[in-house]
């Protein structure tokens, strides 16, 4: 084989391998989307129905408008609530906790970067808030919460989302602040700006795009959280991931089409956000230790 033949063969192998993986990635997502457009008799059948025929918007209408569908079984479908309450809760929780975490995290990060607020060891200990899985304390936590009246409350859940995303916020924003030259702040200080003004009017505006990336990254994590929301909420603070599991366990079987329709609604915003910050995902997930 000549050199150029070999290069062509290598390129072909590469495209083949990448395309195979692309299919593995895409197929489950395709199945979710296609099921959301299928009428109920095509949710399960052997052989499987590969394309919804004819495609229907019935599932989306049922989920979001709460209209009962005869095919899905009358009385159960009537009991279902529309997921707007869950959507509102998820939006409030995710945006609230994420905003607080990024704002507070970036102030801590500034203190660490410029004043050694936390030593290197302490910074790593901060990671434990994220790395020790919440299941190990969630039982006494729910008792404590019911005792102090925070069970099934937005505040109670929000505080936990805030705390568990704080390590990401501190580490990620610190990696951006470290890249800001100190001369800028020194100039501000000489001009008489206080420390707080330096933070809010000089440093944070300089890392604006980094703050947005951090915000979106943590939003993804808080949006998809399941365990804490499942255990610490009862009826009021239901979030979208918990709402999704309600389509389970009915007498006439699972409402797969509706569930898929809601899944699409939960997932698509996250994918858009994630693709917008695709260049920062490595930095986020590695706590700023790996950069591009």
């Amino acid at each position, binding site marked *: 084989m000549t050199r150029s033949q070999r290069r062509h063969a290598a390129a072909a192998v590469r495209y083949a391998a990448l395309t195979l993986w692309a299919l593995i990635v895409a197929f489950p997502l395709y199945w979710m989307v296609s099921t959301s457009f299928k009428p109920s008799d095509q949710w399960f059948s052997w052989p499987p129905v590969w394309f919804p025929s004819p495609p229907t918007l019935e599932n989306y209408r049922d989920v979001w408008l709460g209209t009962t569908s005869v095919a899905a079984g009358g009385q159960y479908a009537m009991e279902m609530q529309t997921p707007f309450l869950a959507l509102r809760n998820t939006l409030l929780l995710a945006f609230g906790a994420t905003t607080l975490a990024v704002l507070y995290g970036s102030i801590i990060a500034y203190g660490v970067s410029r004043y050694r607020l936390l030593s290197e060891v302490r910074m790593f200990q901060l990671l434990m808030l994220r790395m020790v*899985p919440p299941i190990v304390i969630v039982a006494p936590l729910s008792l404590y919460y019911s005792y102090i009246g925070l069970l099934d409350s937005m505040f109670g859940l929000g505080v936990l989302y805030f705390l568990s995303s704080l390590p990401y916020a501190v580490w990620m924003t610190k990696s951006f602040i470290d890249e800001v030259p100190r001369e800028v702040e020194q100039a501000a200080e000489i001009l008489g700006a206080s420390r707080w003004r330096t933070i809010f009017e000089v440093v944070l505006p300089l890392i604006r795009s980094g703050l947005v990336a951090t915000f979106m990254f943590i939003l993804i994590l808080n949006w998809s959280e399941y365990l804490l929301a499942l255990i610490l909420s009862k009826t009021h603070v239901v979030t979208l991931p918990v709402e999704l599991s309600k389509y389970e366990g009915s007498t006439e079987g699972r409402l797969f089409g509706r569930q898929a329709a809601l899944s699409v609604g*939960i997932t698509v915003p996250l994918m858009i956000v994630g693709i917008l910050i*695709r260049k920062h995902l490595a930095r986020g997930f590695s706590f700023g230790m790996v*950069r591009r």
Partner: protein
Amino acid sequence: MAEVLAGAVPAGTAAGRREVSRSRAVRRFKWIILLPLLLTLFSLLIPVLLLQLYFSFHQWTVYLSSWWNADFVAFDIFASVFTDPRFGWALLRSLAFAGGSTIGCFVFGFLLAYLIYRPFRGQALYYALFILPMLTVPIVIAYTGQMLLDRSGPLNGILSRLSGHDVQVLWLSNPDIALLTVTLLDIWNWTPFSFIIMLAGLASLPKEPIEAAQILGASSWRIFLEVQLPLLRPVILLALILRFLDAMGAFPIIWALLQGGPGTATETLGIYIYITTWQDFNVSLGAAQSYITMVMMVVIVLGAIQLLRKEKRSLDQMYAKPAEAGEAG
């Protein structure tokens, strides 16, 4: 540089006083920043950890009324956890799940990153597609997996078409393969994590040693083994450690899909604790199980942190700009 230190400046002079008041202001600034975090942590974590200890030493279930009157039983509950084979199996399953997911994600992620890291046509499209599983809500993956993996679902449908006769693998209800199935789902979910970390590592490798090796006529396999792989060591360890820790706490996919079943085939530590506490309502046993799991996880995390600290230093050196490095040296 000694003059900068407050102690080195003679007290009483104007400069000295200014220095002292500055260091005092800095200290106050630091405390103001930290105070909200410390308050939240103390008001939340301390009572919770105390409660957990209390329940681990006092026999209480929700069927008894007042938890503060529960009987003190010393180490009985801990002893029953340690002698419970189900707990041991749950630990093994957690380790198998996390280990399998870590290795699977790493192998696929690294392979894909290596195939994609040099620019080629379609690179951006493949990249955007490959990160999608990580951006999917885990609970959605669980329910989509339930449709895909059903006995008469599309996965068996595809396998039947490819093999030419009816394949009906019981992905979810066969206890022998259920743990493997959820591990594979987790690998599908988190391969993008290893992929983006390894891609970032490959992209930031210095060009000179690779070019030098090419000029010397080394094959790309030898360049990979002897130049790139050693340079990637910190990134590889990072990808492995972070993935393993995350997988040890995995809950949503296993729970939503199988609740630890069939039987106890997919009952990991997290699932077992959940079942003990919220299905059997045995709060004390659940507390002791969580306590032991917590201590174990803290030990693992502390060990991981030691490793990460070392690797972070070499990473920071890698990212430090040559000019800065010259200044520091």
